[in-house]
C-alpha cells in the first residue's frame, strides 16, 4: 500500500502504508522510547499529532490490549522505520498492523525516520499530512500540511475527555479527577492506594465537583496547548487554598496558568522514557517518561510556586509546589506506562498519601 508523508516545509517522503487507509493531519512529533508502543498509541495526550518513533523496529512483541492507556488509539497517524507483522510474545493478541486497522488509524513504514527526526530537532515541530492508500497528488498533501490550523488553535481536550462523570470506588479519601485526557495508569495508581475516585469531564462545573465532597483535586495529563484549558483553570482558582490540588503534565501547566504564570511551546518537545529530572531538594536525578510540547516559563513562576524539580538536560520546569495553597504538581509522568517506575511511589505515595 503506497503512502506519503508531507511536511509544511515542503519535504515529502514515500514509504509503505499500513494500518487503515486514509488521510491524517497534525503536528509530526517524535518519541524515543524503544518499548511501549501500545501505551503511546493509546495515550490521549497525542491527540492532534502524528507520532513517529525513533527506535526503528516496532511491533516485535505484538499488541496485548492490556497495556492500553485509553479506549483506543489516540494518535492521528503513526510513522515507523520498520514494522513487525509476526510478533512473538506470550501476551500478544494481534499485530500492530491489525491494531491500527481496527481503530482506523493510518500508518507509514519504510521511511528514513532518522532524517525526519534530525529535521524536527533542527527546525522545530512541523505540521504534516499523512496519506495512506489512495495517494493523491503530492501537492494536495503538501497543501493540507501547510493550511491546517496550528495545534494551539485546536480544542483537543474535549475530544478525549470522558462524556459523563463516573466513580471508581475506594475506601480512602475522596479525590476529584478532572479528566483532560487521562491515562489509565494514573487512575490505576490512585486506585491501588484505595482512594475513592470521582472522575469528571473537562467541562465539569464547580458545583458538580463540590457535590462529590472531594478531599483533593487532580488535573490529569492531556493534549494540546494548556491555554485552551479555560474551564480547568477556573476550577483551579475555585479550589486553590481550600483543598490540595495535584497536577500531572498538562495539569501542571494549567495550574501554573491559573496562578498567573505563563507557558510557551518547546521547539520539539520532550517525548520519551529517558528524561532526567533533578530533584532540587535531594539532589538526586530520576529518569522519567515525558510527553509534552509546552512548558511553564520558569521566570514567571517566581513568587507563585516553589520550583522543586528541573529537567537535567535543559533546566525546564519539571515540578513545583505551593505549600500555602496545597498545590503539588509534576511535568513528567510518574505513572509510567510506558517508561521507568522510578518516580511512581514518590509522587503517588507522598502526594496522595497526605
Amino acid at each position, binding site marked *: 500500500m503506497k503512502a506519503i508523508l508531507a511536511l509544511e516545509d515542503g519535504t515529502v517522503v514515500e514509504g509503505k502504508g499500513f494500518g487503515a487507509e486514509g488521510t491524517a493531519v497534525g503536528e509530526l512529533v517524535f518519541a524515543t522510547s*524503544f*518499548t511501549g508502543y501500545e501505551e503511546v498509541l493509546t495515550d490521549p495526550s497525542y491527540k492532534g499529532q502524528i507520532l513517529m518513533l525513533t527506535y*526503528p*523496529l516496532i511491533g516485535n512483541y505484538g499488541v496485548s490490549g492490556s497495556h492500553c492507556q485509553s479506549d483506543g488509539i489516540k494518535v492521528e497517524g503513526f510513522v515507523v522505520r520498520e514494522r513487525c507483522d509476526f510478533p512473538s510474545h506470550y501476551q500478544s493478541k494481534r499485530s500492530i498492523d491489525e491494531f491500527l486497522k481496527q481503530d482506523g488509524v493510518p500508518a507509514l513504514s519504510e521511511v528514513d525516520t*532518522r532524517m525526519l527526526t534530525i529535521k524536527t530537532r533542527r527546525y522545530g515541530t512541523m505540521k504534516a499530512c499523512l496519506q495512506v492508500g489512495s495517494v493523491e497528488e503530492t501537492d494536495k498533501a503538501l497543501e493540507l500540511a501547510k493550511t491546517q490550523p496550528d495545534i494551539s488553535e485546536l480544542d483537543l481536550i474535549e475530544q478525549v475527555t470522558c462524556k459523563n462523570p463516573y466513580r471508581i470506588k475506594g475506601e480512602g479519601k475522596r479525590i476529584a479527577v478532572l479528566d483532560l485526557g487521562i491515562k489509565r495508569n494514573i487512575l490505576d495508581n490512585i486506585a491501588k492506594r484505595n482512594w475513592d475516585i470521582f472522575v469528571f469531564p473537562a467541562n465539569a462545573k464547580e458545583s458538580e465537583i463540590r457535590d462529590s465532597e472531594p478531599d483533593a483535586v487532580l488535573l490529569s495529563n492531556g493534549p494540546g496547548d494548556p491555554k485552551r484549558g479555560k474551564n480547568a483553570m477556573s476550577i483551579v482558582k475555585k479550589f486553590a487554598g481550600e483543598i490540595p490540588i495535584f497536577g500531572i503534565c498538562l495539569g501542571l501547566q494549567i495550574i501554573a496558568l491559573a496562578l498567573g504564570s505563563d507557558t510557551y511551546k518547546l521547539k520539539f518537545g520532550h517525548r520519551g522514557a529517558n528524561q*532526567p529530572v533533578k530533584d532540587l531538594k535531594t*539532589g538526586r536525578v530520576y529518569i522519567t517518561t515525558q510527553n509534552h510540547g509546552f512548558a511553564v516559563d520558569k521566570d514567571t513562576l517566581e513568587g507563585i510556586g516553589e520550583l522543586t524539580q528541573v529537567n537535567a538536560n535543559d533546566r525546564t520546569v519539571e515540578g513545583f509546589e505551593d505549600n500555602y495553597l496545597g498545590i503539588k504538581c509534576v511535568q513528567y509522568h510518574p505513572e509510567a506506562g510506558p*517508561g521507568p517506575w522510578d518516580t511512581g511511589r514518590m509522587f503517588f505515595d507522598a502526594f496522595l498519601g497526605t
Partner: protein
Amino acid sequence: MPKAADIEKVLVIGSGPIQIGQAAEFDFSGSQACRALREEGVKVVLVNSNPATIMTDFEMADVIYIEPLVPEVVAKIVEKEHPDGILASLGGQTALNMTAELAEMGILSNYNVRVLGTPLEAIYNAEERERFKRTMERINEPIPRGFTVNSVEEAEKVVAQLGLPLIIRPSYTLGGAGGGVARTMEELREIVSYGLKVSRIHQVLVEENVLGWKEIEYEVMRDAKDTCITICNMENLDPMGIHTGESIVVTPSQTLSDEEHQMLRAAAIKIIRWLKIEGGCNIQFALKEGSYRVIEVNPRVSRSSALASKATGYPIARVAAKIAIGLHLDEIGNDVTKETPASFEPAIDYVVVKIPRWSFDKFPDADRTLTTSMKSTGEVMAIGRTFEEAMHKALRS
C-alpha cells in the same frame, strides 16, 4: 559535590594477561579510567603484568609498574607509593580478587588505602553465592532455588530436592569457568569436582533449572547520591543455559513488552541501590512469561559493560572512575552531546548485534558444545537500522 579533596593518588590495578573471559575489554575500561582520573588532577599509579596493553603506554599513568599481579608484589607497591585509594572495579575479576586479597591481608588498612567506588562489602555481597542469596532474599528479589556446596557428596544430595538437570556455578571465577549443566549424575560429579578445584574458595552453587528462559542483562550505574540509571538492556538470542560470552546478544531487547522491561529495570535499580554499588554494575535476569529470576550481579565493569558502552556511546568506565572519586552523575559531562550531564539514559535509534568468535581453527580438538562456560575468544559488534542489517554486518566482518 566536587571530587573528594583527600584523594590525590590512586592505584589502578590492570587486568593482567589476556585469556578467555578477560580480554582487551578490561584494557579498554582501565585506560578510560586512567584518563578520567588524570582529567580530575589525580595522580595515577598503575600496575599490570601485561606490557602489551594500551593502559601501560607511557602517557596513560603517572607511574607504571609492570610486575606480576600477585598480592605480595602489589603490597610492596602500596608500601612504596602510599596511594590514597585503590580502584578495583575497572580491571575485571583479576583486579577485584586482588583488592579483596589485599584487604584480607590487612595491607589496605595498614597503609590507609581506601577502596574507591564500590565498597568491598558490596563486592562480597554480590560475588559470594551464599551472601548474594541472602541479600536477594532480604530484598525480596527472586533467585533460582539452589544450594552452595563444598563437596561432590553435598551436590549429590541436592538432586533429591531439585532433580536433574541442574546448573553448576563455581564462586569467584572468570567467564563462568568450571561451570556447566549436569543432566546425569555422572556429569554432576564431573562438573562439581572440577568446579571446586577452580574456585578460589572451593565453593560451587548447584541450582534450579531455568534453561530455555530468556536471558536479559541490564547495565546499571549509581553514584554516592543514590542517583541510578540504566545504560541499556541486552537480550541474548541464545536462552539461559548458554553463557552470554557464547551467545549472540542484541541491544536493546527485542521481545520484551514495556511492562517486562520496566519490571526488570526496576529490579536492577533496587539491587544496585541495596548493594550500595558506586559505579557500574551488570545484572543478569532469566525471564519467562512475566516472571523472572535474578541470575547474577557483577559489581564491576564487565565484558558486557564494554559492549554496552560501545553500543550506546556512553563511556561507562570513564563515568565509573569519576564516580569512584566522589563526583555525581549530574556533575559529569556527557562527551557525546557536550551540553547535557551523564545522568541520562541513552535512547538509541538503531540495533546492535554482538556475535562471539571461537578459535576452533587453533583448538581443533576443543569441545564445540555451547554451555554455561565460555569458550569464545573474541567477539564482533555491529550496528544497523534493522536487525538484519546489524546481523549481516557482524557476520561479514
